């Protein structure tokens, strides 16, 4: 009778163990996804974080565009020119080394 009980309980224990393993896997995946989003946020700023969240959830959408936008903000330093003329009559200031 006892041996019969053991045989009946064993499959349910195996099923319970499988469920626990699945729970652990799901938890680890969630943690990994969260870490990915946090690292992306720190590394690329708010827009890329949203993109990473979209990518992590399987959605591509505008992910690439958002990442590119946040990267291209001020990586290039430009020297736009200004227009100069002869002084006279305008509000005044002075330029000097400081």
């Amino acid at each position, binding site marked *: 009778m006892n041996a019969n009980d053991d045989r009946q309980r064993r499959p349910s224990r195996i099923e319970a163990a499988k469920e626990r393993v699945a729970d652990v896997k799901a938890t680890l995946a969630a943690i990994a996804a969260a870490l990915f989003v946090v690292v992306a946020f720190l*590394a690329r700023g708010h827009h890329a974080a949203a993109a990473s969240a979209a990518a992590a959830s399987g959605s591509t959408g505008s992910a690439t565009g958002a990442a590119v936008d946040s990267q291209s903000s001020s990586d290039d*330093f430009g*020297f736009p*020119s200004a227009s100069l*003329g002869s002084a006279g009559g*305008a509000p005044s*200031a*002075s330029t*000097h080394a*400081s």
Partner: protein
Amino acid sequence: MGVEVGVGGATDAELAAVRACFERWEQAFSRFRPDSELSLVNRSESELLIVSQLFADAVRTALAAAAATGGAVDPTLGRAIEAAGYDRDFSRLADDPRPAGAPAAGRWRDVRIEGRVLVRPRGLRLDLNGVVKGLAADAALELVAAAACFVDAGGDVAARGALDVALPGGGAVRLQGGGIATSGTSRRRWLRGGEAQHHLLDARTGRPAGSRWSDVTVAAGSCCAADVAAKTAFLLSDDGPDWLHERGLAGRFLAADGLIVTTSGWPDDGAATAAVWAA
């Protein structure tokens, strides 16, 4: 930043906003406030730091400026400027009989900024003054709505609309919006061990740079761009006028002996211009 700020064309509320803006920038980037973000970053032993968005943006601009100037305007000379003796607000800086400390060359290529994550070698000290004053003036100008207004951050000027600007050594020019800045050694000089020091450093050596110019003034589309270009043109010495000309920037070079050289695009400013550069 240790400079006087002048504002024209602003309402009282805008003036208060500009004042708060400069205070915010000062608190972030002062080398002389022990609790500034820059001081905290420079004291940190960690090679990887998370910084504020304002700080990250300034570092990104400084690195871009370093790349655009071939490393002439280098944001990693914090240790070198301290070695030269500039370790407190200039108003409190006195000549010192002790010799200057060991210089440290610039290492801007060793610095990375990704979003708000700053990575730099341990012991490297940032000094972002090459871009911060101009950036602050440009940012402050955005807080003023008038069609004609200006913000003057210690002689670096951001303007919207026409503005007459007095120049070093005499003369004046009209800026039709954008920025104008002067870099030079005529004001901030001190002695260390009997040797003249100034704040414009040669990034290759970490020592005060030699230049045939005492003041270089440049006009550009923004105050930050004008300031970076003026510093670069000063540091490049004889090659400065060509460097500006290649970028289509109007500049004016004042030598210690009074010689004035201007690049093409610079109008007659009333001073006795001895040479016009149009390479």
